[in-house]
């Protein structure tokens, strides 16, 4: 395992060299091509920790999140939960209910025809918990997320932030060991974002799940997570502790992300993020040769165009994938 920090008891959730390709077709009769959305990613999530994953839109974060909870099967590599290969999500999976998700879009993540209570209780139904018990626990969980007594309402009667609270309640009701949060606050107003983030933090303290926290916003990831992975075009390019990353990232892409972070003051006014980098994210259909970041990298040198950089261990728990690191 390249550079992974071996914990004595072993990681709770581990991805080992996981790749995922999609077949895409241009036009009706175009040739089928392979789009590699996630390329040989390895990561560990320990019990109770929250691991951040940050990167631009389209770099493969959501695909990685879905791989990590069994909603997608890896094309190669392995996803392990407590050392056992994670089966695809489904009714007879031994892992059902142990990994849950919170999605970005609070409008599509709740079934419009199910009351909040029914949505929150359903994972229990899937586990065969008796009805009265389901209801009691759903109400209790709704109260925990600050929606006391609103269980009979339907999703359209809630605001975006409230819907996200329902999604959190639904994710936590089975007391999962891992919750994958895929940009849980990106669709919310800045003021509501903070509330939902605090809720997620409180929930972690109370119920103790590990989070894989995905966001394109480094500030949000920095608020939530001690350990952060930076992703670029399907690959992890840097892994570091939060303090380390904010004090001085090793990879030029991480540095660019940091530089584009607005200061705390201007964020609160709800200002739009400036574009983080020059140029566009290249298509994952034909990634640049050598270092994938070289067309946009201000520090690129000759070797960057020819050879993909290998992992470099900079300190325990800090590694980067750059020739110059």
């Amino acid at each position, binding site marked *: 395992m390249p550079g992974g920090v071996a914990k004595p008891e072993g990681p709770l959730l581990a991805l080992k060299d996981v790749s995922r390709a999609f077949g895409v077709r241009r036009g009706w009769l175009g040739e089928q091509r392979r789009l590699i959305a996630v390329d040989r990613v390895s990561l560990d999530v320990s019990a109770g920790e929250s691991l951040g994953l940050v990167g631009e839109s389209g770099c493969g974060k959501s695909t990685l999140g879905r791989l990590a909870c069994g909603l997608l099967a890896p094309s190669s590599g392995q996803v392990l939960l407590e050392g056992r290969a994670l089966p695809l*999500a489904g009714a*007879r999976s031994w892992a059902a*209910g142990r990994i849950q*998700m919170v999605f970005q879009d609070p409008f599509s*993540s709740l*079934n419009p*025809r199910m009351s909040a209570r029914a949505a929150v209780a*359903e994972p229990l139904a*899937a586990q065969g918990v008796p009805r009265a018990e389901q209801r009691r626990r759903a109400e209790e969980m709704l109260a925990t997320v600050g929606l006391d007594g609103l269980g009979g309402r339907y999703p359209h009667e809630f605001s975006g932030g409230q819907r996200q609270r329902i999604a959190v309640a*639904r994710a936590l009701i089975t007391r999962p060991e891992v919750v994958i949060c895929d940009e849980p606050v990106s669709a919310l107003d800045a003021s509501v974002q903070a509330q939902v983030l605090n809720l997620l933090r409180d929930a972690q303290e109370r119920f103790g799940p590990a989070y894989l926290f995905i966001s394109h916003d480094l500030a949000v990831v920095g608020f939530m997570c001690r350990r952060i992975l930076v992703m670029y075009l399907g690959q992890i390019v840097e892994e570091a502790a939060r303090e380390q990353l904010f004090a001085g990232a090793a990879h030029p892409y991480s540095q660019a992300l940091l530089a584009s972070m607005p200061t705390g003051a201007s964020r609160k006014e709800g200002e739009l993020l400036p574009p983080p980098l020059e140029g566009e994210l290249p298509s994952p259909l034909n990634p640049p040769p050598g270092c994938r970041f070289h067309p946009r990298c201000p520090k690129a040198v000759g070797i960057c165009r020819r050879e993909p950089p290998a992992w470099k261990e900079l300190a325990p728990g800090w590694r980067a994938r750059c020739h110059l690191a």
Partner: protein
Amino acid sequence: MSPLPFLTPRRRSRLAGIALNVAGKTLWMLLVLWGITLISFWVIHLAPGSPTDLETTLNPLAGEAARQRLEALYGLDRPLYVQYWDWLTRLLHFDFGNSMSADARPVLTKILERLPLTVGMNVTALVLTLLIAIPVGILSASRQNSLLDRTVTVLVFLGFAMPSFWLALLLMMFFGIDLQWLPISGLTSMDYASLSPWGKFCDLARHLALPILVYTVGGLAGMSRYMRACMLEVLRQDYILTARAKGLSPGAIIWRHALPNALLPVITLLGLSVPGLIGGSVIIESIFALPGLGQLFYTAVMARDYTMIMGNLVLGAVLTLAGNVLADVCYGLADPRIRSAREKN
């Protein structure tokens, strides 16, 4: 669909809300209906030709005097607004008047005679269409781009492209003439009167099998495509993903999460197809020599049988409006978003 909610007090108040809404809608629709009759009455009378043509202009023995006598008989010599008023007041007593054709029988009787056949055929075809199209749509959506989905897509486009009269003739040739399994026209056999009730039913079924098949194939393509689209739209929502992450089986996901949401737009479509139930295709009814409403309306138009035309139009308009209300009510019962919007009003 979710079971109809009838029991709890909260739901009862919901029903009361819907009833109030329907009452308001009905009033509005009566107004619309009145407008429709007004306009169609004028337009029909403006069209060239007259119901007396068949018996006068085209009959060398009848002179001008005969024409005038007939016009007086039908009341056609009075000003149009008087005729309309007369027709409308009778309509309010559910009197559609007598047909202006030679038999001069009441319009309502003539329509009611033919209604069971047309409605029966259309309802059967619609039910068959739904029974086939919904599962097909679900299957091809949940296995998008699979061999099954592609096969269905090709068949659907064939179905769209195929004219119904051509299919009808093809089926008649194959099942009626080559195989001689089914009769090719008419509603009953010669010995119908002497058959047992079960025999009568079978005889009717054999006669109607081909026309119903043609109607069904006609509706199938569009309906299965529509169902597939609705289903795909629902399946790409995140709550389907979370349902999978919860550990629900694929069947439970389709049955509890996807289908109820995908069926909502189908309700509207069904409401809109209610007037089509009496529409009866002139072409199909003519090919199979079936005495349906389509033929009745067609001959009425050709003969300028004003009262008959108006009767058919009123029936069609009433069904259109009723279909709208029905779709509204069903939608209101099924969709929580609309339900609560009503409660607030």
